[in-house]
């Protein structure tokens, strides 16, 4: 971060690898953790559809689909040797709609960026990039005010907003029923190459 890592200069794949994957693997290693919990769900993305609830990572924090352990019933094998670890995904079988229904039921506070509001954005190739993220304008681009919200929160500018009027949890749930586009569509990093999530996961991405 100090050296100004950003996706414009590095490309999204490299930026993501440095700022997220490596940083996470380092932090887990320093703490000597046996396990880290994550909120990934199988319905998010094709390679996540095959993720385990207890996902085994080798000494380098890497994921290999071939060394994953079969999970039958709800019996999980969490045994690891020193240096190895588990990523545990208790919400694996939840869907996007389940998460919002649960938020509604338990009245859980969530980040305001999830709710629709008139925001300054740059429209680029169908993606709405928040102006406040410090996006660099390309020739001919200028920010405009659009009612929008973030459906999924990741780094800016790699997570785009969607046009939406949903400014409450109830409206978001209603909106989900109408959606014809997937949740991670606006995650630029999922689409930088074929199988990009699978490759990032192999390197240790959550």
């Amino acid at each position: 971060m100090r050296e100004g890592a950003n996706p414009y200069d590095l490309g999204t794949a490299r930026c993501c690898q440095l700022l997220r994957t490596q940083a996470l693997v380092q932090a887990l290693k320093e703490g000597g953790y046996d396990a880290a919990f994550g909120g990934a769900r199988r319905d998010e993305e094709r390679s996540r559809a095959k993720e385990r609830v207890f996902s085994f990572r080798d000494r380098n924090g890497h994921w290999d689909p071939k060394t994953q352990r079969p999970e039958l019933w709800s019996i999980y094998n969490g045994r690891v040797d020193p240096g190895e670890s588990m990523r545990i995904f208790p919400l694996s079988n939840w869907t996007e709609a389940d998460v919002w229904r649960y938020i509604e039921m338990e009245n859980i506070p969530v980040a305001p960026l999830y709710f629709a509001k008139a925001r300054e954005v740059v429209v680029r190739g169908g993606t709405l990039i928040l102006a406040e993220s410090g996006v660099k304008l390309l020739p001919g681009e200028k920010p405009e005010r659009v009612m929008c919200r973030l459906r999924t929160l990741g780094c800016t500018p790699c997570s785009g907003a969607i046009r939406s009027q949903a400014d409450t949890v109830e409206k978001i749930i209603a909106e989900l029923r109408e959606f014809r586009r997937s949740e991670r569509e606006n995650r630029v990093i999922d689409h930088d190459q074929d199988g990009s999530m699978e490759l990032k996961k192999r390197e240790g991405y959550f």
Partner: protein
Amino acid sequence: MSATADVSARPLPLAHFLRKPGERSMLRVSTAGSVDDGKSTLIGRLLHDTRSVYEDQLEAVRKSPVNRAGGAVDLSLLTDGLRAEREQGITIDVAYRYFSTPRRTFILADTPGHEQYTPNMATGASTADVAVILVDARKGLLAQSRRHAFIAALLGVRELVVAVNKMDLVGYSREVFEQIRADFLALEPKMRGARLAFIPVSALEGDNVVERSVRMPWYEGPPLLEHLEAIEPEGETSAAPLRFPVQYVIRPHDGFRGFAGRIEAGRVRPGDAVVELPSGRRTRVARIVTFDGDLEEAVAPMSVTLVLEDEIDVSRGSMLASAEQPPQFSRRLEAHTVWMSTELLDAGRTYLLRHGPHEVQARPLAVRHAVDITTLDPRPAASLGWSEIGLVLWETAKPLAFDLYSELRQNGAFIVIDPQTNRTIAAAMIEAAAEDPYAARRAAPQPFRAARLTPAERSMRSGHTGALILADAHSAAAQGLERRLFEHGADVVLLDAPVAPLEPLLRAGLLVIAPRSSVSAGFPVLALPPQEQAGDAEALVKAAMRELRERGILADRDQFNAGEGI
């Protein structure tokens, strides 16, 4: 301690959430088959026609350089998630899909159907309410479909749906469909009572998947989706007897002692009579404690803390269970075991068995038989290899509180872990408790009695009487026999030099292998023939084991003999 305190009127949060309001009960479906069956296309069709595929995902599939379907959009690409799969056109792992209709939410476990992927099929079926078995109408009932149906039935799936696919390629012929149905019905006796339904479909054209086919007016049943919407999942696990494996003892201060865990099956209310295993002691539930206050009732699969009325010894590894309907309790059990390792099952090795939250050392004593997953018949086998299924006799280091898989799936299954690699190498469904030669050791505590222990009591526990076996301690036969008896669970000792008198050892009930000059002190005696006279050591050991049994020295409690196979 008061029976209840601060009882909250809150609904049961997790259970309530999982069971969404109204008619949207969840159904878990497994599918198996290869690309050739059109399985991925069928699932793609289900997702597509129920509008569960987002437009951008469909666009990505349209843009994909790979298209195996020829012409139209290759719907199978929606489901094959890994790069290797898309490149090779195969499905190599279980993938989970989610879709819903106005009537119901579905979780679909999508598994490959190749022979070598039995473990994946078993994984998908382990949590399924329904298995959709794919049959290619052109090819008829192949080994792969039989295999999937059998594995699903073995894993306790109660509803099987046979989808006869590619009806478009056989001219939507009723005869073809009826022939396949007849072939499949012949297998029904091996399907463990699962219900069978047959539906002719064309996943490619969309016939009878979501929409009723106009091209098969002779078929009067519902399309696949409608059939799945109508199925009633297996009875609630909360209607089963209570099974509560204790994961953790919570003891913040002297005044509180609670036992935390997840209710695997059944329900519990304060006042319920429970039995603690392994002690066999009975008590009652005093309170059900949660972070949000005490509950009046908790049901599977909630995680709660139970407080008991009496101070009994409960620790991690204990099970609290319904006192009226307690689980089985034994060190030996027979289980259908799905082997998932390329290393063969080794009857001489100690593995780790994980049952619910508990791990215990365990040995496979014998393979009763392997199951031919194509003919579904048992065949003799000495071991199990990758992707094979067999009925295995397991012995655990400590007794296990379990149910039969057919009676209570949640408490009747376990996995096997290789303690060296930490990998999960097998999954097993318990078929029966085997007789436990150690049963007397863990009988419920008896009232105090000052009475001499009798030889009969000793042999009841050890499975043999004291006896002297004359042999040369350095011979392979003597050493092999000591080991074989030890593996059998006997108390045995091999003496290098004569010991006099031997009586105390024999009275203690030991099998003593000692030099030929030893004196039996009135106990049974057996002499191993000198090795040079009587063939190889292994044959000598077998003959000695047989003689020990024939003379009633070694109780033949079950037909099993670890060394001699079955």
